[in-house]
Each structure stands twice: as structure tokens, then as C-alpha cells.
């Protein structure tokens, strides 16, 4: 199919593209920017007047719940929700059921993804078998089967020797380790940020040091092993400082942050709101602004949704007994635009963190608007507004912490490999 996207403002920070130009697509590739290719006859014209035409977004972390947790969501439902926020590539962590530690599971995910036909899915393989933090997973075989990195998900590896060997082995397979840095003992079964609010609410608390101690340890082991290390979901300002210092030393270290930690703080759990029970926890305002600063100075190079859809029962119980995680994927872009509108982030920075820079971390060739590349496109109507309503979420998980928020910006179209996978005007 040949598609002509007309009159939109093309916006691709990494290529320094910000211009009112047309975009031409044939089959699954972009075949022309600004100038119509010779002999091009469009089958479909999309009017992008007054809209931003962006590369399809790359979500560095979203849980699509297949295989094993289909009562919380499926690749079909969640990738559709992702499309409504302009997301065309998703990286998913290995804590499915069964864990992504065999090629069979990877194949299953790829199959489901092809069937849904809505997003590219890039699974992370397990770092240890069954995420047991003891034995190394078959990282080479997993890479052959299509994993772009390895991770131990939320299962912290307490044994430093095991962590060291896991880093070394991943390095030998030329795989990036995606590490959620948290010291289990310091976490001490906590569910909220250690501070005045957790004291007032009487919730078991997670000190800042649970993150910073784990980061420090991992950085030193990364230094020793030369592994490419990516820190997942930073939550503390202090943690940002530690990583910044390591980057200054030229260690191959990157970091991302979840959208929730950029917009919410510990105050949002004040009424024991379990939709705000997250891992890592929402921390103080000082931490939030420290994370924003970390984006602006280049320490953090990706914003992800950290999407975790849940069934109602998972949140229908007292706070500390609820499962952590928020359903955010369908609002990733409008929520990021909220930060732009509040002037905390510049538009170029925000978009690059959702596209090319996220793609770099994953070492995939996505997130740009270039002739010859895959036609993954997101068309954003900046003037339209998005109202977040728990009951109207497209995701199977209704656990959104942003219920009632009015956001600026709404995706009108999403294209994957040159095919329109989302058209808001056709939504019921």
C-alpha cells in the first residue's frame, strides 16, 4: 500500500528534522521525505495538518502478560493499547510464566506478536535460569532465538559473586544487561518510600539506599567486567548522580526512568491509593526533580511506560498486599507531553527519549524518520486533549494512577511497517 502523509510537522530529533513536510510510504518502508518520489501514486492519503508526525515510539519496558498471565492482559489487548499512544516497538522483560529462559517462549511471543500485527516485540532473556539468581541462563541460545538483552526482572541477585559472573557471561555473549537495581535486604519487604509519609501511613518502607547501594555495587562490578549495563527504572536523585559519575568515567552505562516517577511522588499514595503502589516506589519531590534533571543532562536516555496491567483482584486489598504496577502504556505519549507543557522537558529531548535514544539502548534500528527505514509512524494531534478515565482504558488493566487527569495531545494515527494499525476516528 502506498501512503501519503500530508501537511504534517515532521519531527525527528536525532536527524534534526523539524519541518512541515510530506512523508511517502510504500509497502513497509519510508520511500520519500518532502519530495514525492517519481511515479508515486498514493492509495491512501492521511491529512496531518497541524499535527506532529513522529517516528513510531519505542517503549523500553512494558509487560504484555503473555505467556502465563493472560487474566491480566494479552499481547493482542496490550499492543492495541500501545498503538493508541503511537507505540510501535515494545521491549518486554522476562518475568512471564514460564520465564523467557528457553527459545520456545521467545518463539511463542514472536508468534503472538505476528498474529496481533500491531507492534514489534523485543523480548529480554533471563539472566539466570527461571530468574532464580543462582544459575546462569543460556544467554547465547536466547540471543540466537531473538533476545536483544538479558535481565533478572525484579529478582535482585543478592550474591555478588553470581552477579559478577552473570555480567561476565553476558559480556561474552555481547549482550546488554538490563538491571533493576535494588538491595533486597535494605528493601526489607517495604512498599513505600521511606520518609514522613510512609511513617504517617505506617507502611513498611524502602530507603533510598536500597537503590543506591545496589547501583554502586553493580557499577563497580560493571567496571570490573566491562559489561554493557543498563539501569532500569531509576527512582532516586542520588542514584542519578552515581550513574552520571560512572558515565563520566566512560563506563558503558545507560539508564531509563518510568513515566510515573516523573509525574508522581510519595504524596500520591496518601489515601492508600493502591494504583500508586509501584516498584520502584514513588519517592519524594526532590527525587522527582532529580530524575528530570538527569534527563536534561543526558544521564537518563529513555522514558518507558513500565506498563503493568493488573486484574481487579490484584489491587482490591489493603495497600501492602496489592500487586505493584500501573497500567500506563496508552498514555505514555500524552503524559510525556504533559512534562513538555509544564516546561520541565523540551520537546526534542522528550521525543528522542521515546524514540531514537530508547532504540539505541536496545540496539535496534527503530525510532527515526529516514528514507529506506521501516515505516513506523506516530501522528500526534497536539491540540486534542486526552482525558484519562479508568473505566474507558483500552488496556485490560484498569489500574491507572492518572484517573481524572486532563492531558494535552492525542495520537490520531499509528502505522507499523507501512500499515495503519491505529486510527482514532475509527475507535468506538
Amino acid at each position, binding site marked *: 500500500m502506498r501512503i501519503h502523509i500530508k501537511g504534517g510537522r515532521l519531527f525527528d530529533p536525532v536527524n534534526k528534522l523539524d519541518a512541515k513536510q510530506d512523508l511517502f510510504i510504500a509497502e513497509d518502508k519510508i520511500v520519500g521525505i518532502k519530495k514525492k518520489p517519481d511515479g508515486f501514486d498514493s492509495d491512501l492519503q492521511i491529512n496531518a495538518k497541524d499535527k506532529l508526525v513522529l517516528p513510531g515510539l519505542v517503549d523500553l519496558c512494558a509487560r504484555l502478560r503473555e505467556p502465563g498471565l493472560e487474566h491480566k492482559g494479552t499481547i493482542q489487548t496490550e499492543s492495541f493499547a500501545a498503538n493508541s499512544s503511537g507505540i510501535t516497538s515494545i521491549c518486554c522483560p522476562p518475568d512471564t510464566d514460564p520465564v523467557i529462559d528457553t527459545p520456545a517462549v521467545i518463539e511463542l511471543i514472536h508468534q503472538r506478536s505476528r498474529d496481533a500485527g500491531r507492534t514489534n516485540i523485543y523480548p529480554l532473556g533471563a539472566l539466570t535460569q527461571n530468574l532464580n539468581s543462582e544459575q546462569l541462563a543460556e544467554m547465547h541460545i536466547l540471543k540466537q532465538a531473538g533476545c536483544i538483552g538479558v535481565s533478572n526482572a525484579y529478582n535482585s541477585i543478592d550474591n555478588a559473586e553470581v552477579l559478577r559472573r552473570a555480567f561476565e557471561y553476558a559480556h561474552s555473549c555481547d549482550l546488554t544487561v538490563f538491571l533493576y537495581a535494588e538491595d533486597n535486604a535494605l528493601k526489607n519487604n517495604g512498599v513505600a518510600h521511606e520518609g514522613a509519609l510512609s*511513617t*504517617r501511613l*505506617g*507502611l513498611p518502607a524502602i530507603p533510598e539506599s536500597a537503590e543506591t547501594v545496589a547501583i554502586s555495587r553493580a557499577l563497580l562490578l560493571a567496571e570490573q567486567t566491562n559489561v554493557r549495563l543498563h539501569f532500569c527504572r531509576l527512582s532516586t536523585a542520588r542514584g542519578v548522580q552515581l550513574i552520571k559519575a560512572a558515565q563520566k568515567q566512560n563506563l558503558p552505562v545507560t539508564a531509563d526512568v518510568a513515566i510515573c516517577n516523573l509525574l508522581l511522588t510519595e504524596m500520591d499514595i*496518601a*489515601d*492508600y491509593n493502591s494504583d500508586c503502589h509501584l516498584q520502584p516506589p514513588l519517592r519524594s519531590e526532590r527525587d522527582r526533580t532529580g530524575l528530570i534533571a538527569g534527563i536534561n543532562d543526558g544521564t537518563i536516555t529513555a522514558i518507558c511506560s513500565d506498563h503493568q496491567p493488573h486484574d481487579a483482584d490484584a489491587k482490591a486489598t*489493603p495497600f*501492602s498486599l496489592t500487586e505493584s504496577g500501573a497500567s500506563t502504556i496508552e498514555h505514555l505519549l500524552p503524559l510525556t507531553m504533559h512534562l513538555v507543557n509544564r516546561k520541565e522537558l523540551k520537546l526534542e529531548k522528550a521525543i528522542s527519549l521515546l524514540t531514537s535514544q530508547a532504540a539505541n539502548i536496545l540496539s535496534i534500528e527503530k525510532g527515526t524518520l529516514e528514507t529506506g527505514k521501516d515505516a513506523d509512524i506516530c501522528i500526534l494531534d497536539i491540540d486534542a486533549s486526552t482525558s484519562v478515565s479508568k473505566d474507558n482504558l483500552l488496556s485490560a488493566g484498569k489500574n491507572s494512577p492518572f484517573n481524572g487527569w486532563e492531558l494535552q495531545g492525542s495520537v490520531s494515527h499509528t502505522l507499523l511497517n507501512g500499515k495503519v494499525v491505529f486510527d482514532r476516528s475509527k475507535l468506538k
Partner: protein
Amino acid sequence: MTGNIIQLDNNGNLKHFLSTEGLSQSLLLNILDHAESFASVGERHVKKVPLLRGKTIANLFFEPSTRTRTTFELAAKRLSADILNLNISTSATSKGETLSDTLHTLEAMHCDMFVVRHANSGAAHYIATQVAPHISVINAGDGRHAHPTQAMLDMFTIRRHKQSFENLRVAIVGDILHSRVARSEIHALNTLGVLETRVIAPHTLIPKGVEDLGVHVYHDMDAGLEGVDVVMMLRLQKERMRGALLPSEQEYFQRYGLTDERLALAKPDAIVMHPGPINRGVEIDSGVADGERSVILQQVSHGIAVRMAVMAMTMGRSNDDMGGSK
């Protein structure tokens, strides 16, 4: 924060009693005044009033407790209510029945009130958001968060001995970190307008940011007790020794135990309180616990009157003037 919005109905009357936080001074004093009326019921020939006749109160204890449960039961019976005792062990919930399902089953049995004790902070608050509109929830202790009836019976006891809260210095001693009693006491004391609230404990037992609740923190017991009018001792649980928070009971007693010597640093008419059960020789010396300044046994009897007051207030809607016919 948590508390007042959900605890009060549209007319500002107490509907749920979940926390002493966020309630007005006049409401807290009202509870104490009603408790005074109910206190005399236990001294009569017929130790009952018909106020809650025909109502069913369910004791939902997810955490076992004989003392508190018995006092609530007695309070309910003195109000002529029927009582259902449900000790919900964790095995019931591990069978897969959600908390919501348990609540709905009980509602189908026409319960009018739930008295809830639960190991997790925010549990009573959560239950209050889930129950049918006519049902009241009383928090009998949720995790580390609140134990409001305990705090109110302690305020009742203090008022009986000191008449006014205005010029009082109160010291709360012990495991503040894990104590729901401490948190509820602090909110109540500050709302009732005491001069100063102090917490005394080793660093490992003081939660971060506790000053925000409106207390002065002391790590030196002797300094902390100087000139106080009320000493509230908290129970030290044995698990704290195993959790790398304290080395031993002996050392704790040496640094923070209430002895006659230490009590002498407080005002000469200072009273000694403890929510019970007491660990003799760990947080408090036997001599002090049984001594003339101790009001510990009175606290227990006050608990019935205070719980009667809270039950009566939440079950009926209060009016501004005495309506009804003569």
C-alpha cells in the same frame, strides 16, 4: 490525609472510626464526654443500655487478639447489640476468597458494623471504602498505622487524672517504628492541644520523618523524661531482637526501661501508662507497673466505655438540637 474525609458523613458526624488523625478537637472531646456517660453503665444493676438493641456487630479479626476483641465484645453487649466473632486466619484468604467477597458475605448476614483488626496498614480504610453505605467500620488496629480506640481510652485516662490537656508534656517510649498505638496517640495528643509530645527510643526504632507528626525526638531516656506529666510505655516485641534492631532485652532495659529512678525525673505527680500486655523487666520495672503512679489497670476498664462511645456515635447520626417528641 487519610481519615477525615472518609470518617465523617455529610453532616460532619462520625461514620467510621479509623484514625485519630484528621478529626477535630471538639469531636475527640465529644468521644471522651460520651465515654463518661457510658462509664457509669458498668456500675449499675443492669449493666446494659438498649441503645444498639437489634444491631449486629461483627468482630473481624485478621490478627488474633483476645484482649481487644473481648473489650469490643463487652462494649457491644453493654449496648445491647448482638456480636459475631470472626477470627479470619490467613488460611481462609489463601483459599482464594478475596477480602471483598468476605465482606459481601457478611453484609448478606445483615451486619451493621465491622470492628476490624488487620496486620496491614490501611486495611480498615480499605474496608471502609468497600462496605455498603449504612455500615460503619471501627479500626481495632491496622498494621503500624493506627489504633484509634486505644488512643482515645488513653486520652480518657489522662483527662480523668489531669483534667486538662493544655499544659501537659507527654513522653511515649519504645518501638515507635512499629507502633500503631504511638501514631494514634501522637495525633490525639496534638489535636487535644498538649504542650509537648515526645518520643523516646533508640535510633533503630524511630521511623524516618517522625518529627513531621509533631513530636520531639529523644534518644536519651533520662533527658526525655525530665519534667513530663505522662509517661506512656510501649510494649517491646521479641521479634525486634531477631531483626537486627536491638541486641538484647537486657540492654534495652538498661537504656530505656522505666525504673523508679527514671520515673523520679518526671514530675512528682506524673502518671505511668501502658497499652498492655506488659513485658515486666523489659520495658518497665514490675515495681513501677504495680506502683501508685501506674494507671495501667484503669486503662483497661476505660477501654469498654470508650469503645461503647465510639460504637454509639458511629451507629447513629448526631443532631445539633434535641429533636424528637416528649
